[in-house]
């Protein structure tokens, strides 16, 4: 007995607590995050409080909150915020509707199901740069699909969608075209988990297709839809490539979202302090929007 007790105590001492174990396995990730997230974030914060000049000799000057105040007083910032909101709302709604439709269609038993699934998934594999080029060609009057169709019908009209009125919608369509297949596939995976007997019961209860969708299909999808709405929101708010290639923020500044404006301010005008300050407002908007989504929708889904 005298020899067993110290051994047990020794073994207990070696055992890690849950917190220690979590820390141990999480440490590499934490270190990685410090390197790739915390450092750039801290550096951005430093830049946001400074005026940085590269020409005529590199020099910096502490300016306090001046950059933040300038951002808030800049009408261009508010215009770009409005464009970002308009684009994000349209893009997310289109993405989710298209994704849901793709999932529902692919869930129906059809011949060559595998081929369809592959084809439908392809847009997600296309780079945003490529998608931007394609939609620019499709939307322009000069080279566009509507022009080609009208010409085929013998009409000489040149419908132009690259205008201040419609450019955000063209971008939203392009963006949702690339994102919707991924949503569609997660919806499909979710649909496959719904027991068939629930549909049998719905049939016995003589529910209409719409009622069946609403009461049987939709409830298990709601959490997936919430997650992808959040993801699509974040991706839309920070989208850059598609806008750069498709419209370059134009005509004028009609499609200049905050990310595009940030690029212009920081990398063309090399106004890094001001750009960094603006990027923190974008970060706040993204966090605010996703938190709101969680509070309004996500928390309820979690409780269910």
């Amino acid at each position, binding site marked *: 007995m005298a020899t067993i007790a110290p051994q047990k105590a020794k073994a207990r001492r070696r055992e890690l607590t849950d917190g220690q174990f979590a820390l141990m396995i999480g440490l590499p990730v934490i270190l990685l995050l410090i390197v790739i997230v915390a450092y750039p974030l801290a550096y951005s914060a430093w830049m946001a409080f400074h005026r940085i000049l590269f*020409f005529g000799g590199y020099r910096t000057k502490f300016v306090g909150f001046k950059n933040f105040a300038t951002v808030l007083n800049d009408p261009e910032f508010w215009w770009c915020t409005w464009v970002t909101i308009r684009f994000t709302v349209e893009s997310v709604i289109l993405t989710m509707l298209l994704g849901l439709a793709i999932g529902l269609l692919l869930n129906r038993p059809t011949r060559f199901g595998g081929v369809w699934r592959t084809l439908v998934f392809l847009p997600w594999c296309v780079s945003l740069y490529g998608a931007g080029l394609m939609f620019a060609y499709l939307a322009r009057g*000069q080279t566009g699909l509507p022009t080609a169709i009208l010409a085929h019908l013998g009409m000489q009209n040149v419908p132009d969608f*690259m205008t201040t009125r419609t450019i955000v919608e063209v971008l939203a369509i392009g963006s949702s075209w690339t994102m919707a297949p991924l949503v569609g596939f997660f919806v499909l995976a979710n649909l496959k988990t719904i027991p068939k007997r629930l549909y049998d019961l719905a049939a016995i209860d003589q529910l209409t297709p719409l009622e069946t969708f609403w009461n049987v299909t939709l409830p298990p999808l709601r959490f997936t839809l919430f997650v992808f709405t959040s993801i699509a929101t974040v991706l839309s708010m920070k989208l850059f490539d598609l806008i*750069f290639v498709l419209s370059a923020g134009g*005509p004028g500044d009609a499609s200049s979202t905050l990310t595009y404006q940030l690029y212009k301010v920081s990398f063309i*005008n090399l106004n890094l302090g001001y750009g960094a300050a603006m990027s923190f407002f974008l970060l706040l908007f993204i966090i605010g929007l996703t938190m709101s989504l969680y509070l309004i929708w996500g928390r309820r889904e979690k409780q269910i």
Partner: protein
Amino acid sequence: MKRREFGTLAAALGLAAAPFGRAFASVADLEAASGKPVYFRGWQFAPEVVQSNVKRYNDLEHGKIDYATVTGDYPAIMEQSLIAKADLDVLYANPSTAVRYYEGGWVLPAETLPAAAEIKADMLPQFLDAWSYDGKLLGLSYFASTRGCVHTNLLAYNKAGMTDKDFPADWDALYDQIYALHDKGVATPILPHWFGDWYGISWGFVMEVLNRGNPVADPTTHKPTMTVDPNGPAYKTLAQWKKLWKSKLVPQEVLTYNESAYIDAFASGRYVFSPQQIYDVQTMNTPGRSQIAGHVTILPIVKQTWGLIDSALYLMTNRKRPEAQTDDVKKFASWYGFKDGDGKTFVADRWMDTHMLFSAYKSVMNSPATEARIKKAVARPGDYEVLLDVYKQTPFPVGIWRVVWSEEFNSFLKDTLSKFLLNDGDIADTIKSMNDQIDSLNDKYGI
């Protein structure tokens, strides 16, 4: 001297001369010696030609050139690379960007090349002037062109009952003719230089003001020179733009075109006039590439010049690297941007041959091969002289391009001019805002 003594002397001389054999064989020793790579980054224009030129250098001169193209906004990406002190030795730049990079302390001027005197002697004076800053030649000739020479679709022009003798002599006459052509049933008489690239609408404005006789900013002090006088160049340009925009003869989508779409649009044959690159006369006259091939000329100089100098240089960076590697950078830049080991302007000649890229070197532009090449590209034999005349007289906006803030002003100009059209802006207010911006940039950089 005895035969035996002569033989010994000859052998000794031969042995002594052996290490310089290569130098005798070629005009300059451009062989790489450090064994280290030279990083060369280019934009996406004919990368296959660049790749093959680089391979030739690597094969002939045992170079280790690491070449890659950069996608996206080239000047901005290069600027970030220079700031980050990335592996970058040779790059492209427009003159205004070159000035900015020089002010950032990132450029090794071409003055430092052993062949600098020969290079400068061979350079056409307007380009030597445009590419010199702080008394130093910044880089070597990649291409030297006229942007904004007015391409004219002769098929549509003649169909409207007009001939060469009706060619407009200045911008005002050109605008008058646009409406006359429209009255004759031409739906889209002009494709203006309003496209969305960073050298689109802003350069379109600068070239018109410059051609009308105002330098936009003073070449020496960089103070703004535009006035709100209704007969002044800036005012007249904006007034014509406003009228054209309101007439709805130009589709709004032009503001979002990139250059490729802009070229395609004119090549479609829908338009009569368009300010384009001088070397794109070849593109417009190439069957299969253009609907109006064989029918595109440019407006000759009568009362004023057309367009502005659009050029690019090969720049060397001055990042920290071993001296031997810097020597290799210079050798490669000299080989690529001027003459190869055999004393030939191989790369410039090849650009002329493949893409009709004009060069800043007299030896290239005055060669019979160049004359033959241009004559092959123009619609009519007489157009060759017209092209050269326009090319040689093209102005350069020194006041706004040979200054550190050039790119920032260009970005401002692009936004301001697009908004001026889209929001029916006030002409005087717009000119005032441009002048204010120049003043503010001068203040920012202590000019």
